[in-house]
């Protein structure tokens, strides 16, 4: 349940592009055609799914305050969290390189479709942002970190797919000349972000509704018990009367 909740939350509510504006540079630069957008989106999902859990492990066992305690008690007081930027970005850069080599070796066809995008991804803010948000939101387990990585990757994929489709269509409409290209893309993204804000009620709304029936149920139960007591009293009185 936790996993499903985090999964949908990271796709829709905390969408990388529309809620936190991460990965905007490549989002704007590579969204001219749907086919390239799909390639980059798939590569982002892939890299996020690898780097977020990996950085979670780094954060848990090396960087956090007291994380080094597995080395012995002498190391328990170290707090290396100031190194997290450099560690995260180094992991990401190496992982991207590694993923590129592995994919090239084992699946040349996938490499041909993702290959050119992989080096671009090392400097995509969405990837580092995923790891940094994972750290600042204190995601509790490795499984959840993986869910978060995949979920936010899919969210980014959806966003770039949508804008690329819109940009392919907008070529046929008459946009004011000064707005053509970049300007109109910004404004459309803004409107899409407003649309995505409506997903915000998805989880919180559910939570509120969940809480209300609980209190009502509790009230009903209390009242039921009260009623029972009253009934018992009445019964007792009646039996008393009958006895008399």
């Amino acid at each position, binding site marked *: 349940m936790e996993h499903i909740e985090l999964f949908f939350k990271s796709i829709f509510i905390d969408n990388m592009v*529309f*809620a*936190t*504006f*991460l*990965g*905007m*540079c490549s989002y*704007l*630069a590579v969204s001219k055609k749907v086919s390239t957008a799909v390639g980059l989106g798939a590569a982002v999902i892939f890299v996020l799914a690898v780097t977020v859990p990996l950085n979670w492990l780094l954060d848990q066992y090396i960087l956090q305050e007291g994380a080094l305690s597995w080395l012995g008690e002498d190391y328990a007081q170290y707090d290396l969290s*100031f*190194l*997290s*930027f*450099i560690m995260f*970005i*180094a992991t990401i*850069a*190496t992982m991207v390189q590694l993923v590129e080599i592995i994919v090239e070796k084992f699946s040349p066809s996938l490499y041909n479709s993702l290959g050119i995008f992989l*080096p671009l991804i*090392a*400097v*995509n*803010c969405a*990837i*580092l*942002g995923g790891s*940094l*948000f994972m750290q*600042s939101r204190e995601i509790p387990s490795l499984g959840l970190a993986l869910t978060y990585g995949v979920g936010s990757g899919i969210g980014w994929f959806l966003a770039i797919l949508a804008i690329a489709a819109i940009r392919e269509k907008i*070529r046929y409409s008459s946009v*004011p*000349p*000064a*707005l*053509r*290209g*970049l*300007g*109109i893309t*910004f*404004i459309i*993204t*803004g*409107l899409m*972000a*407003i649309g995505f*804000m409506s997903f915000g009620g998805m989880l919180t709304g559910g939570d509120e509704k969940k809480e209300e029936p609980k209190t009502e149920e509790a009230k009903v139960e209390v009242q039921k018990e009260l009623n029972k007591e009253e009934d018992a009293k009445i019964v007792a009185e009646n039996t008393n009367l009958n006895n008399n």
Partner: protein
Amino acid sequence: MALISKKDAALIKDPFLDNNPITIQVLGICSALAITAELKASIVMSVSVLFVLGLGNVVISLMRNIIPSKIRIIVQLIVVATLVIIVDLVLKAFAYELSKTLSVFVGLIITNCIIMGRFEAFALGNGPWRSFLDGIGNAVGYAVILIAVGFFRELLGSGTLLGFKVLGDPIEKTGLYAIGYENNGFMLLSPMALIVVGIIIWIQRTKNTSLIEEN
């Protein structure tokens, strides 16, 4: 001898308007949009980027002949990450509240495309002094847009500038609020940052028609 020759002056002036990193080169958008709800945050972010870009450009330019081109991206990332850690620690020490507001976006300066973009496009092929000027010029171009967006969003969204109530007090109904003015809370939400930048691009390209794109 003039300290800045004419050619060098162009390095600083160009990114300011006609080759602005945000509106023309489309670099460094992420941070520009996420933290501009307040003017103060935009200014701090601009200063941080100025520091990282200026210094980073010099460092990369000094090392440009000894970096093997195959691993240059990792080298660049390590240089930026080190500078950003310095910025982050300074912010945490002297402006803790503000560093909380900026949260992960200080860390995201590392992947701010302006920085990598300028390293790749300029610092790898030019001397330290020119790289420094290029870094400062681009950071200032970035700062101009950031501060403009922050200015309008804070003024229209919460009626304040740097925390001062320039339009009067909304609760006690003084100043503009006395005649029925209301804050537009929508300006504080993140989508409006995109639309404000869109409008800035619109105005800029209307003034300078040579910048208009084909499609």
